[in-house]
């Protein structure tokens, strides 16, 4: 892929290239360490998570699809999911039964390919469609790995109120980005 060295390295790692794996570690490592420290807030836990992250990178590199996005974005998504799963494992479950309902899917509709074609509007341009504190909630959730409970506590509102706020914000962002 033109101009995405991390993507190229990931594809080599997918072919079990150990030198590429080492190069990927040094090139993407500092950013990934930054993600893990920001979310886990503890350097030693972040170092532990970094080891697990790169183990998963080696095992899952074949799942990386360069057509879907940059190599670094794929790695950051992997890092965030790992870090957030660790955070959530420490926390009690939300006292909210409706959150656990698996809503049956309606008849499947064709998925939008707008995002995959790179034609979606960028999220940065869409934050001003939200009120400032809602935009802050979305950004905080993403960058710091905050849970619904964390956000509810931070904004001093009930859990269900925060869920409604956030869902409406996500719908509004989607409308801005995908239409």
């Amino acid at each position, binding site marked *: 892929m033109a101009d995405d060295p991390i993507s190229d390295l990931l594809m080599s790692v997918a072919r079990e290239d150990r030198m590429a794996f080492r190069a990927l570690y040094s090139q993407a490592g500092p950013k990934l360490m930054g993600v893990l420290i920001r979310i886990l807030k503890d350097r030693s836990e972040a170092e532990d998570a970094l080891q*697990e992250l*790169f183990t998963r990178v080696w095992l899952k590199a074949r799942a990386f699809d360069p057509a879907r996005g940059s190599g670094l974005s794929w790695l950051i998504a992997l890092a965030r999911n790992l870090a957030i799963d660790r955070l959530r494992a420490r*926390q009690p479950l939300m006292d909210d039964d409706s959150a656990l309902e698996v809503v049956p899917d309606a008849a499947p509709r064709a998925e*939008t390919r707008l995002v995959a074609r790179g*034609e979606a509007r960028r999220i940065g341009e869409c934050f001003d469609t939200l009120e400032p504190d809602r935009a802050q909630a979305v950004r905080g959730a993403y960058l710091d790995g905050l849970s619904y409970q964390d956000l509810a506590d931070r904004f001093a509102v009930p859990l269900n109120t925060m869920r409604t706020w956030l869902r409406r914000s996500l719908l509004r962002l989607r409308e801005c980005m995908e239409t």
Partner: protein
Amino acid sequence: MTPLPSSVPPDDMDLRAAEYALGVGDAAQRQAVEAEARRNPALAARIADWEAHFAGMNGDYAEAPLPDLLPQIEARLFPKAPAAPRREPFWRRSFGLGAGVAAILVAGWLAFIPQKPDLVAALAPQPGQAVAFRAAVTGGEMTVALVSGDGPGEGQDFELWIIRGDAAPVSLGVLPADGERLTLPDPTEGAVLAVSLEPKGGSTTGAPTGPILALGPLTRT
């Protein structure tokens, strides 16, 4: 911006994809969405779309000093065979026999299983690996034996997984050192058994974190 064709996925599924990609759910919700995404490619695609949207914020993550953890990572992913075995393979210990006699036992070990097993599996070494196992299932019980190569080294364990069809591997536990029987509640012909190298105590993630050493399908005897 070209208009969106009227093919937006249902809001409930799309919001679950967005919430998952954002990370706000609790542990139970996240696991439920992950499991659903493994079965439902449309959900998996929407999660990927939302991750791509949110990636627009990645510029706000600062870099941090990178420790050199490559040696530990590589030791786990690419273990070197120890020069001398650190531990006798458990099947040798349980039969209390020397190497020469043990070789004969390998060929005929199934004869020592009291009943004819329902299903067996020969777990052949993966490229670059040197361990092989055989498994035999009788009713809901399975015995697994190391038939070549060495047992796990210091601080490591062998963990057994079963892979049914396209599903993610499910752990059957760390292989016991003394050849005890494991329970296998739903033995299915064709399901693949795999052994991975894990840290002592096994994987903490619910999925293999170390290399797959050997694997093979369960077949009828």
